[in-house]
């Protein structure tokens, strides 16, 4: 165990930051899309959904990684789902009790956190194979990445859809809000375009050469 401690700190840091950009659940891995599209018509709802999902992810990652040796291989998926469902019910009851209006806004999408591919995926791929502290770091990073992405998408859609961010009036009265941004088509379009933008930024960061690929007459686009 002595040797592990020496190399541990960077690994934890790597686990944490991985979830923020390289393996950002929404824009890179593209999992957990159902709530992303559904509740981000207002930044506040997106943030609340992000936090609720992160809490569930962190809590179940910790529990799963603690009991990872005890759960037999055959029933690992039903057991993980049971743990996640318990935490989601706790979150749902807590929101109904303490934040009734957020619970009303998120409505039917809170229980969908149980079947969010992100959480079950992380349990299976990471939490059930690594010690608790690494699982917690990974869950924290993934959760934060998820929340930031949802809040960002929520802000964009709310800004364009109703001219406000977190219901503070940002764009003046002259701005006619794009109602489409609040409807399902707006959700798909804005997420698709944001995905494209993130890919461009990522390519720019990676190549650092030109922003637009140089067009090479012979070989076509490089």
């Amino acid at each position, binding site marked *: 165990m002595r040797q592990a401690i020496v190399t541990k700190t960077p690994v934890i840091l790597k686990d944490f930051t991985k979830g923020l950009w*390289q*393996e950002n659940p929404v824009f*890179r*891995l*593209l*999992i957990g899309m159902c709530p992303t599209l559904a509740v981000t018509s207002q930044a506040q709802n997106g943030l609340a959904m992000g936090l609720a999902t992160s809490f569930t992810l962190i809590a179940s990652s910790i529990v799963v990684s603690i009991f990872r040796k005890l759960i037999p*291989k*055959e*029933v*690992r*998926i*039903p057991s993980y789902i*049971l743990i996640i469902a318990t935490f989601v019910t706790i979150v749902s009851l807590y929101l109904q009790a303490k934040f009734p209006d957020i619970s009303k806004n998120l409505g039917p999408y809170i229980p969908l956190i149980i079947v969010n*591919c992100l959480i*079950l*995926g992380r349990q*299976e*791929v*990471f939490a059930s194979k690594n010690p608790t502290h690494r699982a917690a770091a990974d869950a924290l990073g993934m959760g934060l990445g998820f929340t930031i992405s949802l809040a960002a998408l929520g802000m964009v859609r709310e800004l364009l859809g109703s001219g406000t961010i977190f219901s503070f009036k940002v764009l003046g009265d002259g701005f006619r809000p794009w109602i489409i941004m609040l409807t399902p088509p707006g959700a798909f379009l804005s997420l698709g375009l944001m995905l494209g933008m993130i890919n461009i930024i990522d390519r720019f960061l990676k190549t650092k050469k030109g922003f637009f690929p140089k067009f090479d007459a012979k070989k076509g686009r490089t």
Partner: protein
Amino acid sequence: MEKTLLSMAVMGGLAALLGIILSAAYSKLKVEEDPGVEEITELLPGVNCGACGFASCEEFARRLAKKETDIEKCRITFRNKETVQKIEEALNR
């Protein structure tokens, strides 16, 4: 207190019933799967989320074994270096 006991009883009963059904099924209904595919299925997350285009990781593993698709499609694990590497080993064996 009575509600808690009731809820524990209901959940316990339900899970026990399902546990028995599943364990019986596992032993009796074992279908020989060719080991290569089984090994890959073990490596895949087994979450059956359908993001790879196939409804179950088992099916995805079978297609991987037949080289009809590539690991890139499984969006949960394709960034996970160790698993991808293990799967590649299993594939070219």
